[in-house]
């Protein structure tokens, strides 16, 4: 860990202004950032602690949905009765992630911003374009069993590790932010995370200093909510793949978002009109470029979808 300076922000706009300076970063739960700092994968020179800004409530939004404060802890969000009743897929996704201790610390905004678990990203001896732009991608041609199969680039095949974000993608959440000038904006979750392209170190639509203040969920869509996380051990493991499904919503087609496939929560709305698992998987994974080690994810998506559809039909 490199020495850094530290301040406690007094307002979201002040936090954004402080974090806009080169080398500055927000810290909230710290469950990912601190580990990365210890390894010097992240080397911020200044930390802006946003933990005392409030932003930790879940409130009804004007249009019948929910506004989740950026600092609502994962545990609190998963346990909220409104979330459990109306957005079950989100509660289930949260509870499938990390461990109880981590969920107690981890925040809603921080969860969206967690970095990849690609093992080469974590080892500063190895090339990694995400960690050190231009150094190359050790994962390509290396250990890639857990990595992305779609939306990859010649520079990066990392995945986004969040479960929560996958459910939010299925629910069409919106990320609300404020910048240093106090100006706020709303970013649809679909546009929030980026594909790696040739700038894999740029992971989101956020501008320097721009701070997430809340995530809003639209009015409940009804239906049967399932989050299926496929993993190598029963708990405390990142998804090999995951499926966030809303089946039989009050209106429109079912929704399917996927984790463990890409640099962002993966959802192809056009695939949702397909009638069966095979069709949905084929459409959602069109253009996939798996490695030999992670090609198993392609059939696994279809098989898991079949399981989810069967579970939904029985529900």
């Amino acid at each position, binding site marked *: 860990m490199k020495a850094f300076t530290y301040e406690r922000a007094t307002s979201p706009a002040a936090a954004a202004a402080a974090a806009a300076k080169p080398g500055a970063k927000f810290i909230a739960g710290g469950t990912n950032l601190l580990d990365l700092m210890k390894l010097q994968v992240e080397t911020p020179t200044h930390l802006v602690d946003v933990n005392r800004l409030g932003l930790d409530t879940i409130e009804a939004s004007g249009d019948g949905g929910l506004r989740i404060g950026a600092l609502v802890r994962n545990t609190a969000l998963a346990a909220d009765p409104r979330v459990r009743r109306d957005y079950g897929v989100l509660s289930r996704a949260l509870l499938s992630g990390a461990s109880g201790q981590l969920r107690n610390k981890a925040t809603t905004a921080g969860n969206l911003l967690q970095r990849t678990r690609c093992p080469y990203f974590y080892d500063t001896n190895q090339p990694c374009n995400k960690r050190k732009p231009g150094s190359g991608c050790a994962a390509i041609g290396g250990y890639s069993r857990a990595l992305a199969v779609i939306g990859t680039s010649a520079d990066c095949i990392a995945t986004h590790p969040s479960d929560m974000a996958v459910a939010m993608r299925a629910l069409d959440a919106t990320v609300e932010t404020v910048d240093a000038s106090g100006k706020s904006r709303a970013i649809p979750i679909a546009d929030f995370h980026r594909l790696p392209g040739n700038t894999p170190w740029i992971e989101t639509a956020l501008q320097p200093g721009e701070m997430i203040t809340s995530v809003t969920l639209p009015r409940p869509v009804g239906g049967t909510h399932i989050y299926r996380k496929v993993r190598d051990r029963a708990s405390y493991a990142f998804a090999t793949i995951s499926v966030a499904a809303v089946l039989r919503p009050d209106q429109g087609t079912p929704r399917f978002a996927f984790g463990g496939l890409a640099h962002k929560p993966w959802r192809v709305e056009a695939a949702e009109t397909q009638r069966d698992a095979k069709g949905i998987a084929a459409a959602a994974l069109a253009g996939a470029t798996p490695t030999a080690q992670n090609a198993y994810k392609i059939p696994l998506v279809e098989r898991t979808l079949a399981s989810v559809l069967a*579970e939904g039909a029985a529900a």
Partner: protein
Amino acid sequence: MKFDTPAGRNPIDQGKVIGKPTDRIDGPLKVTGTAPYAFEQNAVAPGHAYGVIVGSSVAKGRITRIDSADAERLPGVIAVVTYENAGKLGKAKAHTATMLAGPDVEHYDQAVAIVVAETFEQARDAAKRVRVDYDRAKGRYDLAAAQADAPIAKGDKMKTARGDFAAAFKAAPVTLDATYTTPDQSHTMMEPHATIAAWNGDALTLWTSNQMIAWAVRDMSETLLIPKEKIRVVSPYVGGGFGGKLWVRSDAVMAALAARAAKRPVKVALARPQVMNNTTHRPATIQRIRLGAEKNGKITAIAHQTWSGDLPGGGPETAANQTQLLYAGAHRLTETHLAVLDLPEANAMRAPGEAPGMMALEVAMDEMAEKLGMDPVRFRVINDTMVDPEQPERKFSDRNLVRCLEEGARRFGWERRNATPGQVREGRWLVGMGMAAAFRNNMNMKSAARVGVDRKGVVTVATDMTDIGTGSYTIIAQTAAEMLGVPLDKVVVLLGDSRFPVSAGSGGQWGGNSSTAGVYAACMDLRRRIAQKLGFNSDDVTFADGKVTSGNRSVDLAKAAGDEGISGEDAMEYGSLEKDYAQATFGAHFVEVGVDAHTGEIRVRRMSGVYDAGRILNPKSARSQVIGGMTMGIGAALMEDAVVDQRFGYFVNHDLAEYHVPVHLDVPHQEVVFLDTLDDKTSPMKAKGVGELGLCGAGAAVANAVYNACGVRIRDYPLTLDKVLKGLATA
């Protein structure tokens, strides 16, 4: 004492304290966080500085330049030690690679420097600023590629044969020829390697985390080129070792060098990634097994060839161990090959040999039973042997494998198993049962202790034995209490200090039986001295209820000790009984798993076993040992896999997020039953090792259950869902 004839009746047979389920006497210290582990021994090393080890970023090559100027300029930095300024060092015979690289680098993350600073944070930051340039050399990292040219390893029993295997295999009506692979594994003990080193003139003290105190003294002496008498090693509490702490590692050596350079005590702990690439690991294996049998299931031919790799001068994984002893068969062959690889040092990990060996042999037995159309339990029963099958004149000291198999099958409800795979379904789960034998060799090691009684009747045992979470403190206290007729709370146990008599240490599941046998010997010496002091005839003296009694005379033990106290000291040494008799521990594992029919995820649903390990000294801690082994068996079968990057030559998934071991949700209820056997040829304790037995075969039982559940036979561990899916797709 020398143990060279089978034990007769002795005070241990009273079973007043020994054999009773007993809470750990060190438990309260541990659960209140007041048992000081190595890194927490602050009180003994005031004014200490912190050391952080810099590891090599290449797996093989030569250091061309070290530039520590930037690091040394940082605030708080006291010293940077590298091979250039460390002074002359030796290499301990027990070490395959050196603990400090330079100029040659032998493996990835091998220590190239240690940075010492006032605070941990300063040292860790400065460590990142030590610039080391390398000439990278081409290394060998692929066991499969090295297999063809790998010779038979040097050492005993690396090639064994009896009869004519080739002819018998050819003639057998039913045969199996299958190859299994097991991956590299990391010990991943909870407490990483850690040491505080302090010099007093030319004398060195190490507070460290180590399984074998006397070996640690020897290896430090050989490395630092100073006399053993000048080295004290203290390791009273060890947060797990699994063989990874059998030998001092870089934390100890580099802490000593750093403390010498800094002229003050230095503490060093390895970070988790360093545990995986800087220290040792269990090497990957390739194992070919051939079985030939008559149609009635009698094995006529059995061969087990294994391959593993290590750095030049290293040793093999002896994965054919159990195949030399477990099953009958007139025509036999084992071969243990060793390839040269430039990965980090391969070495012992819990049940070296049998742990991966049983993962192959016991799956082969399952496959063969199916070919024979025979129940797997029955197949093992009819191939049981009461003699060493390679030397039929050599009997087993005591062997109750068949009882374990039959009792285990009955308790588990084995008769409900459907022998045809893939037939039982509960919702999305395909459910299957599997079993395997358990087998682990028994070893005895010379072990000494000193036992004293003070004027208050308090018994103090001192021995350099270690407690690596196994429960040594408690079984040693039980032994002394039984031998001297005092309650457990009158016994104080002091362990893990090289100033104490040299014990067996903790390794190879020999620690429990051997160290208590050493305490038995010391207690016998003390009993003689007390009897002599009291003028009693030592042949008819009893020690019970805090009294020493002979005929109608009885004296309080405290009074017998007198104001001066009295003590005895002795070692237990072993004669030829280990050669005359095959000594081993046995058991049977039974497992039920579910395999998700869609995703291929495997979850263990039930696990039970029956074990035969002689006298169980403390059923409570022995059970803990066995369920820990069974849990490690789940990990070995389903997830543990230190993945080698073949380009860069290192274990890529070097943290606990990516190197998976089982978590609570992976481990179902585990039932453990011990047979009430005594083995009078192992020691006066009539006990055997039990710490590793629970692991040996457990992984194979899981794999066999997976096959029974879904019909996919995976011979390449771990059994991950991608391999299940591949099998389901082609099934």
